[in-house]
């Protein structure tokens, strides 16, 4: 017997991310929790960066999907504590990122003062002969890299 909250969680967990639609909000660790009290379903989401411009989209998408699945009373709330971390991206999420040509973050990766020593694999050819072109990329959560073996540029999710 599947409970209401379990069913709601399943629906919310399947909502794709508006920027990276090959991943779900659950894969990215943005969906923090789903609760149900007195017939109201509450979905909690944790935005990635402070300035993430997709929060309204995500909140709207989650609410719409839940309503479409038959939940009448739905609210979406932000949970900003604890803050989002790239460590929250699931193993499945990391696999999907790599498949989409985006290098996943290294769990527990830390900033260093010197040149970075993390081995970043090219998501196209797998080579570790890669270099960072810019620490900032097309969205707040990505940096821009290049593979010196296959010469292809690629995005990489930053550790935060």
């Amino acid at each position: 017997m599947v409970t209401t909250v379990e069913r709601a969680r399943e629906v919310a967990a399947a909502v794709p991310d508006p920027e990276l639609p090959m991943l779900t909000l659950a894969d990215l660790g943005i969906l923090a929790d789903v609760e149900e009290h007195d017939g109201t379903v509450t979905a909690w989401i944790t935005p990635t960066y402070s300035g993430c411009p997709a929060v309204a989209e995500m909140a709207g998408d989650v609410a719409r999907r839940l309503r479409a699945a038959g939940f009448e009373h739905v609210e979406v709330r932000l949970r900003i504590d604890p803050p989002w971390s790239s460590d929250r991206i699931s193993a499945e999420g990391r696999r999907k990122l790599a498949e989409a040509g985006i290098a996943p973050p290294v769990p527990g990766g830390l900033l260093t003062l010197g040149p970075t020593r993390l081995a970043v694999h090219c998501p196209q050819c797998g080579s570790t002969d890669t270099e960072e072109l810019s620490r900032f990329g097309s969205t707040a959560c990505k940096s821009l890299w290049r593979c010196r073996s296959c010469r292809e540029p690629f995005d990489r999710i930053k550790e935060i």
Partner: protein
Amino acid sequence: MTDDHVYLSLSDAAGEPDGEARWAYGTGFADPLLGVDAAPPSGIDPADLAAYCLMLGDDALVLSQRLIQWVTRAPELEEEVALANLGLDLLGQARRLLTRAGQLDGTGRNEDELAYWRDEFDYRNVRLVELENGDFAQCVARLLMFATAREELYRRLADHADPVLAAVAALGVKELAYHREYAQSWVLRLGDGTEHSRRRMQDALDALWPWLDELFTPHEVELRLGVDPLQLREPVLDRLAGVLGVATLSVPEAAPRAYVNGRAGRHGVHTEELGPLLAELQVVARAHPGATW
């Protein structure tokens, strides 16, 4: 969609009762503290906390606006993208802090009302962040000074009694570390570069250094809240001296900029450079009051 006119059909929220759909991606703005518990923490004067959030929020908002002014003007595309990213982080922090200030100050103003409808004497940012951009060396010098100080401050605020301020700081400290690293890498590159780049980098530091001390000068609200910024002074100066040393630059010895009758940015006393910045920031909102887009 029933309307023939594409704009109308889309702007009509596609017939959704809750109006959540928008006519284009990214045009919707959620309350940055949507559904976050707004109760003020016990034992803290909400007015003081509001004033403090406004100070930090205005720092972030004004510097964000300065960084955005680099877009289309940066020396390389990568730097433009980087500066826009830093500005976006700061804008996000400002949105949360201004929203928090409006929740606590008793006026119920939202982030837009605070950003667009206050005049310069109601802004509480330090003067360092409002100064005109200058050259790229000044851009990275200011970023290095601000990011080093703000990272240090956020680290201390991450366990603040106000859960909202603490959460802004806990995420902000990680974002500011990226900002500091970015600024640091350019200060090193320009300082330990050619004779010309070294001179320009040193000139930039000399020009901005006198404004640094305002970040460490306590306001009475900060003292009442127990967040004395004077405690940041030593660790921040140590860190900056370390970077400048590696970059073969010297730590400027210029005296701090004077206050006006004991008042400066935190009291609403600004340089003449803030007014034009706010005019640019606010013109659309003021020309079309209440407009949504």
